[in-house]
């Protein structure tokens, strides 16, 4: 009686996947989903089952996503693990791009100044005492860091701070804070160093060469040798 099914359920070894067709209207889809889920009753089972939802080339707003999650949850002992779609809005794409790009800035960040970027920051210059640099991602400073650097400021524990001269008054990564020791009279050079969160949730400062093992994701180069 009907051409294609708009809703198909597939079981894989990772669990259930709901494929929702992207050519019908949202209303239709909801109706069919409702019907489909009522048909194969699983009410005898009380174990919760997680399900992944694939919506193809359909864009779902936040509200629609919530609505579908609600609908699926109500019908069965199903929990929506994720909703994945092939499309995102321009806004989201731009945000993603911002978060993934390295913004380079040639400036001296002086006392009282704050520089903030969404993604990684490459600062060609110094951060003077009283100055602050913040980034959603990593911070790379080609000059001296004497002020405050806050990497992964939206809660990214993997973020790192790298500086040619590491003499910060404070380093913050995600929501961890570390400050310079009060008796900072050591005549150590503190050149070419990086700061990261170690396995004990402590901000650690080390030679920057250790990053290659600790944070391989920093390498963006594909292929090569």
């Amino acid at each position, binding site marked *: 009686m009907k051409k294609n099914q708009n809703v198909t359920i597939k079981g894989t070894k990772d669990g259930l996947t709901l494929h929702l067709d992207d050519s019908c209207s949202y209303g239709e889809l909801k109706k069919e989903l409702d019907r489909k889920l009522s048909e194969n009753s699983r009410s005898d089972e009380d174990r919760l089952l997680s399900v992944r939802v694939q919506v193809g080339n359909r864009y779902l707003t936040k509200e629609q996503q919530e609505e579908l999650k609600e609908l699926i949850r109500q019908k069965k002992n199903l929990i929506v693990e994720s909703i994945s779609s092939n499309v995102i809005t321009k806004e989201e794409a731009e945000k993603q791009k911002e978060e993934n790009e390295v913004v380079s800035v040639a400036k*001296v960040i*002086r*006392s009282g100044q704050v520089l903030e970027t969404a993604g990684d920051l490459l600062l060609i210059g110094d951060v*003077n005492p009283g100055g602050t640099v913040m980034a959603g991602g990593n911070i790379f400073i080609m000059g001296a860091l004497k002020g405050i650097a806050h990497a992964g400021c939206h809660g990214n524990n993997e973020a790192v701070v790298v500086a040619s001269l590491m003499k910060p008054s404070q380093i913050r990564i995600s929501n961890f804070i570390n400050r310079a020791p009060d008796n900072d009279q050591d005549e150590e050079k503190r050149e070419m160093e990086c700061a990261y969160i170690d396995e004990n949730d402590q901000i650690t400062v080390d030679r920057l060469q250790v990053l290659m093992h600790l944070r391989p994701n920093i390498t963006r180069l594909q292929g090569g040798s």
Partner: protein
Amino acid sequence: MGEAIVITSGKGGVGKTTTSANVGTALALQGKRVCLVDTDIGLRNLDVVMGLENRIIYDLVDVVEGRCKIHQAVVKDKRFEDLLYLLPAAQTSDKTAVTPEQMKKLVDELKQDYDYIVIDCPAGIEQGYKNAVAGADKAIVVTTPEVSAVRDADRIIGLLEKEENVEAPKLIINRIRSHMMKNGDMLDVDEITAHLSIDLIGIVADDDEVIKASNHGEPIALNPNSKASVSYRNIARRILGEAVPLQPLEEESKGVFSKLKKFFGVK
């Protein structure tokens, strides 16, 4: 058309007013027509340092509010033949009596009559600072070799860099005590210049004579025998575009030759 230079520092007590008085005097000694403008409304000092306090009739606020003409308010320095003038600040009002727009208009008007307008800026980064910077073309930041003064200088340089009408600021390091610098008890000149990353336009040694001269209302720049005076005169020459090397800091050496040797020798 003249040029307006604002002398600023952020921190108080580092020698803005002394520097303004002496740089202005030194420029006049070079034959330039100079007008000193005191923008520290409510806490004016420049007139005292210049020894012109008792000749003030009108002040900056009177000019801005139209109670008198500029030429009525400026006080002529009798030590010079029609070269050095002072526009004093008002002592009775406060910084909010003038707006940056009014200051800009005033300075633009002064630029028609003088070669250099030297603007003495009050401490702080509020209204008074904004007024002082509004009409300026160039800026000189004064600091002392102390961490707190350098910190405030850094802040003020950051603010000055945002001003579109002001050229990249130049630095004066004031009150240098050479023995402390040599022992490493004070930040040294190279350290400060590297930290602030702006051009140095002069260094001035800490000299009791400067305080003495200020108290007598006689800028030290007028006394050719003082070391600080030479420093200020050199700064004026550098403002005029001459390339003048920095003087050596050590006092003990007597002869010119040994001074030179020290300067070029091992640090």
